[in-house]
């Protein structure tokens, strides 16, 4: 059983979300290929992984709410709204570029 298998992906934060992630906009991540129950890693698992393993800021509620990204954050998979790709059930592929964008309101 190859539990240490990982998927290389790029994560990017925009619209101020990077503040929650040590002010770093881009991350190259090796995401475990299987989630906690051995299923292929999907975006829901990625969000949990980011929250538990990458995010150092204690204000988790500014990133996740009710086990998914909070309202006001767009998830973009390879330059497309995740709604076009199956939302959090999308299975993460090698080389994916996944972006989290917080909406802005200033004007």
């Amino acid at each position, binding site marked *: 059983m190859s539990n240490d298998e990982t998927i290389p992906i790029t994560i990017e934060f925009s*619209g101020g979300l990077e503040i929650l992630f040590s002010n770093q906009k881009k991350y190259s991540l090796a995401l475990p290929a299987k989630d906690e129950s051995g299923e292929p890693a999907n975006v829901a698992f990625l969000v949990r992984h980011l929250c538990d393993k990458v995010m150092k800021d*204690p204000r988790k509620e*500014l990133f996740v709410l009710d086990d998914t990204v*909070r309202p006001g954050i767009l998830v973009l998979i390879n330059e*497309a709204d995740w709604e076009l790709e199956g939302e959090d059930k999308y299975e993460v592929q090698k080389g994916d570029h996944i972006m989290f*964008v917080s909406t*802005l*309101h200033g004007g």
Partner: protein
Amino acid sequence: MTTVINSLRQQIAICEASLRELRQQLADAEHIQRQQEKASRPKNPLVTDPTDPFDHDMNFGIPDDFRSEIFAVLEQEVKSPVQDDSAHYIRWPLERYEYKRYGRQLIMPEIGIQGQLRLRNARVLIVGVGGLGCPAAAYLVGAGVGTIGLVDGDVVEESNLHRQILHSTARVGMTKVESAIVALNSLNPNVNLVPYTSRITPETATSTFKDYDLVLDCTDNPASRYLISDTCVLLGKTLVSASALRIDGQLMVLNNPPLPPGDTNGGPCYRCVFPKPPPPESVVSCGDGGILGPVVGVMGVLQALEAIKTLTQKPLAFEPPSLLIFSAYSNPMFRSIRLRSRKVKCTACSMHATITPEALDSGSLDYVQFCGSVSPIDALTPQERISVESYAKLRSGVNPFTGTVSNKDNHILVDVREKTPFELCSIDGSINVPFSVVEATPSSSNNDMDVDEEDWIAQLRRSEKPIFVVCRQGNDSQITVKKMKQLGLDAGGKRYIGDIRGGLESWRKSIDNDFPEY
């Protein structure tokens, strides 16, 4: 001095108002003059100049069918009342000045005569005359959009001027709408500008929007963004929405095409993209987060561009929905993201919509409540807070409570503003622990992870002096006091930790008038 300034401002406002009036009269008079000139032109204008080899008489040497085709096109554009015996007279669809003024865009295939006529007949509503609305309005007025409505309830402040390019130093204190109209009138007096000097509300939205073809959302808060989107969906208007903060901007053209709710071929609305509002504590304003002038300027200019594209586009030439992300310090600066189509269960634009014209007009939809708000922070007991006056006495060496004189640096003053504003100005002797650092620190210091304590905590733990915490307005300071106590910095209650009520704003007002206001 204040009364002098106010009276001067008032006088300026009055003069500007009469100037505006005069300009309008002048524009009207010029218009009448042009009409008269046109009417009194010689009946037979087709006499050509034989010395000019390029002067072409359309009566000769042109096939009849071609000629009638051209004339038919021209007739279509100008539904002129004087058509009788001047059938030979070639009337131009645009006024003379319009060819000159708009010539540089007229000669482009993207605009051309048809596009210019569409712009002239168009009515655009700009909601918010700030950092986005100013540049957007300037370009649309410049381009010759026929009618532009301007909605804003605010007055011009000095801190607006670095980015809100229509306003001016002399017009600080004037309503933003009036100030913008002064600038826009001098830019192009031929555009009909309609002022709305109150904030948009559910009760006024429908009546304000209904006469316009296209709406620009240039506002600065989630509640108005949902209200504007809902109104656009209900009235079938395309919406050009933009926003900006710090060094980032976002742009979307929504409800495009603006088909009725339930029609899945219509473009997505704001609620399709953001069904739920963000938690209020995650919403940062330009006043708190900062904004770079050209960043919001770029976004406003792009809104004008999208408006011009939408107004002049060939029928049924709709782009798929997208979100444009601008990031001033990234490379590339622009990125376009494919957006979803209309959401099947959208509460505004789907078959199952619950947001109806009746609900909107009745005012039963509370957008402010829907989006929530951060309640004023009142986290500490009165004993944990000190007024700026008492703190000033304490600094002078007099204990405000006992009256005894003691050492001046008998305490530690912690300023929790971010590093950059702290470097702008600070109270002598204060140390900086940015609030973002405070917030990013886990509450319990003795958790199972045996990590080194962060520097700022370690530094404060080394001393036993009382700690006073200050911030800009007295909110973050309260949260910091709580955090410090959770971290055990108060030595189980033996050491005093408190915040300075009202923060540096109160300090400036009551103690040190020279302290910069920013």
